[in-house]
């Protein structure tokens, strides 16, 4: 495909879609497909279209995450601007007919707080585009960003544009993306690589896989723009082995993009070459760490190595390597298309743009939401996601997996951005938000995360390998009613040691959940120690306590 053809294809497909009476889009990512059977529902809708004699007028297709994952499966009626949840196959004829009365109590309109309160950039195509059809992506303005950089911009200008946008890495650390690109672009080397980190190992995080499964071309386009900017010709997407659907979708997308000449030897018929290969992880959390991920692509054990040198200098096979997160890449095409000023107008001074959060736990509408950086936690949880169901009380939100911390009720108004969360001992991390109610014991939660880190420690450095075991056993002792106050000092000492001396982020961050629960919920620790009692009433095998 060359530039004219891309523009023509966009127009043709747009007109075709506009000519339809309705488009029914079934969520076709993880939860809705695998667990809740949206594929069967799609089949029933197809049959209902035939039955009602509407082929060519009403169309059914898959789409990215509609956001209401806790009420799967979800289906969207495009022309009615409505999304229905808890859909069954029996609803199919009503969907096709556009009979809205059937869905009373199961309808979320675009004007309702759940959607109207969001600001969708990364998820803009969810509910609009079929992830398995490149034409759909093109009709929604896809690959226009790539077209723009190839035909109008120099690599230097692209890097400047990303710098001006203020985009920061969404993989957890929040490193300014433009600066990272500049570092790689400056290296003199005939070979450079671009890697997309799609390992997403944080338990409770499902943003990246939803983006890959729901809008894979957006990530490919972001990677291609990055490759143009830094001068790379080969890219890799490292996808978590536990997400087979994401692997399949990405592979399909790469095949389609290559066939259309959007990736390959002459991208858009220009003198720019870029290929992408998929690498599948094999279930090791530490492989999300960039140097471990690189080792894994090289076919080695996924253990991190000391930095510097950082990957922009010495990465994959020793060559300069740009490594960014899925959501980071997903932001690139819109920034190029709409300009850095537009992007920088969202969010706060230090954290620009939007962030996708995966909500789970005790919340009315678990699922995916995207809001501007700096949105207060209360707005996300209560205004958009419907708050905590009746009969339960909000206790804390656990952010960003085993590396982050908890946000207790008194901090509900904290603006969600990198620095303000750090100030209260938490962090955005990758973007998982798990709401826990009063029945969850925070000491038990801390032990849960420590057990995770203990299992996942790669064993290369001693502070992490031995420290996680020590901390876990200490927490276990406290929970079983055999702890003492001295154990709390021991926890703090171990935490300091691990933070200062671990080789990679896994060991450095492993103490975070412990220290943050100690900070906000010390009374629960003390109740376990002094009264052999769990304030939440959830943990402690009581027999064991009785033995003490």
């Amino acid at each position, binding site marked *: 495909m060359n530039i004219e053809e891309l523009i023509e294809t966009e127009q043709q497909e747009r007109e075709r879609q506009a000519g339809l009476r309705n488009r029914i889009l079934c969520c076709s990512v993880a939860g809705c497909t695998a*667990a809740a059977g949206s594929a069967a529902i799609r089949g029933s809708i197809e049959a209902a279209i035939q039955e009602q004699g509407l082929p060519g007028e009403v169309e059914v297709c898959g789409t990215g995450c509609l956001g209401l994952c806790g009420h799967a499966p979800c289906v969207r009626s495009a022309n009615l601007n409505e999304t229905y949840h808890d859909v069954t196959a029996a609803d199919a004829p009503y969907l096709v007919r556009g009979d809205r009365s059937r869905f009373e109590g199961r309808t979320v309109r675009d004007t309702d707080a759940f959607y109207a309160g969001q600001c969708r950039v990364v998820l803009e195509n969810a509910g609009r585009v079929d992830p398995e059809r490149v034409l759909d992506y093109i009709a929604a303005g896809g690959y226009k960003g790539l077209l723009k950089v190839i035909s109008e911009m120099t690599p230097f200008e692209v890097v400047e544009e990303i710098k001006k946008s203020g985009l920061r890495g969404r993989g957890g650390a929040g490193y300014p993306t433009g600066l990272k690109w500049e570092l790689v672009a400056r290296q003199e080397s005939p070979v450079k690589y671009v890697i997309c980190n799609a390992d997403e190992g944080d338990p409770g995080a*499902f943003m990246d896989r939803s983006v890959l499964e729901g809008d894979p071309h957006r990530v490919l386009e972001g990677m291609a723009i990055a490759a143009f900017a830094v001068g790379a010709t080969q890219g890799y997407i490292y996808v978590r082995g*536990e997400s087979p659907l994401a692997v399949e979708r990405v592979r399909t997308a790469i095949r389609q993009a290559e066939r259309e000449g959007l990736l390959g030897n002459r991208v858009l018929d220009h003198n720019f070459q870029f290929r992408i290969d998929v*690498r599948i992880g*094999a279930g090791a959390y530490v492989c999300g760490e960039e140097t471990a991920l690189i080792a894994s692509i090289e076919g080695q*054990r996924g253990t991190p190595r000391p930095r510097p040198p950082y990957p922009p200098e010495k990465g994959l096979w020793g060559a300069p390597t740009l490594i960014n997160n899925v959501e980071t890449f997903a932001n690139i095409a819109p920034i190029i298309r709409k300009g850095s000023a537009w992007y920088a107008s969202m969010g706060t001074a230090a954290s620009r743009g939007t962030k996708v959060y995966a909500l*789970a736990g005790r919340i009315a509408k678990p*699922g995916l939401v995207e809001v501007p950086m700096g949105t207060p936690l209360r707005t996300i949880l209560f205004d958009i996601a419907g708050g905590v169901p009746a009969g339960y009380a909000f206790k804390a939100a656990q952010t960003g997996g085993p590396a982050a911390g908890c946000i207790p009720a008194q901090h509900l108004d904290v603006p969600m951005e990198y620095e303000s969360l750090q100030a209260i001992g938490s962090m955005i991390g990758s973007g998982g938000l798990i709401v826990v109610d009063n029945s969850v014991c925070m000491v038990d939660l801390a032990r849960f995360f420590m057990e995770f880190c203990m299992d*996942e420690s790669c064993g290369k450095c001693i502070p992490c390998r031995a420290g996680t075991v020590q901390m876990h056993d200490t927490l276990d002792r406290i929970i079983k009613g055999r702890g003492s106050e001295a154990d709390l000092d021991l926890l703090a000492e171990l935490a300091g040691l691990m933070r200062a001396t671990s080789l990679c982020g896994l060991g450095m961050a492993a103490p975070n959940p412990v220290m943050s629960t100690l900070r906000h919920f010390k009374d629960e620790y003390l109740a376990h120690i002094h009264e052999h009692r769990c304030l939440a009433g959830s943990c402690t095998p009581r027999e064991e306590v009785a033995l003490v």
Partner: protein
Amino acid sequence: MTDTDRAQRLERVMARHGYSGDSLIEVLHSAQSLYGYLSPKLLALVATKLKLPPSRVVGVATFYHLFALAPKAPHQAMVCMGTACHTAGAPELARVFHDYFPDWQVKVGRCVGCCGLAPMVICDGKPQIRLTPEKLIRQVEDLLQP
């Protein structure tokens, strides 16, 4: 598939990667999906073909959780112990297998990415969602019906 077919397919996968040591993880993924698990013989074969020391191959195979080094039992369950599932009662679900279905091979998973439907267990490849211990017992019994 016969053993010869399997061997041929694995050979083709290695050939496609040019028998390069860098492709070790891809090759192990393929070997496992062909044979079900990675036997010592299979690991030795891969080491020879890719010209890698056996220690490197075994080291990689044991490092990653998804590689199975022993044959799989006829029934497999993966109990998700991600944060959402854990706080929604996953530990009790693991106990169901221990108490009622001891012949199932039970693994612990770290978040399948369907946290909105927690807690969940994947039984013989089929995801079971929004579980309680009672519901899980019913679902497993249904699965075991011929």
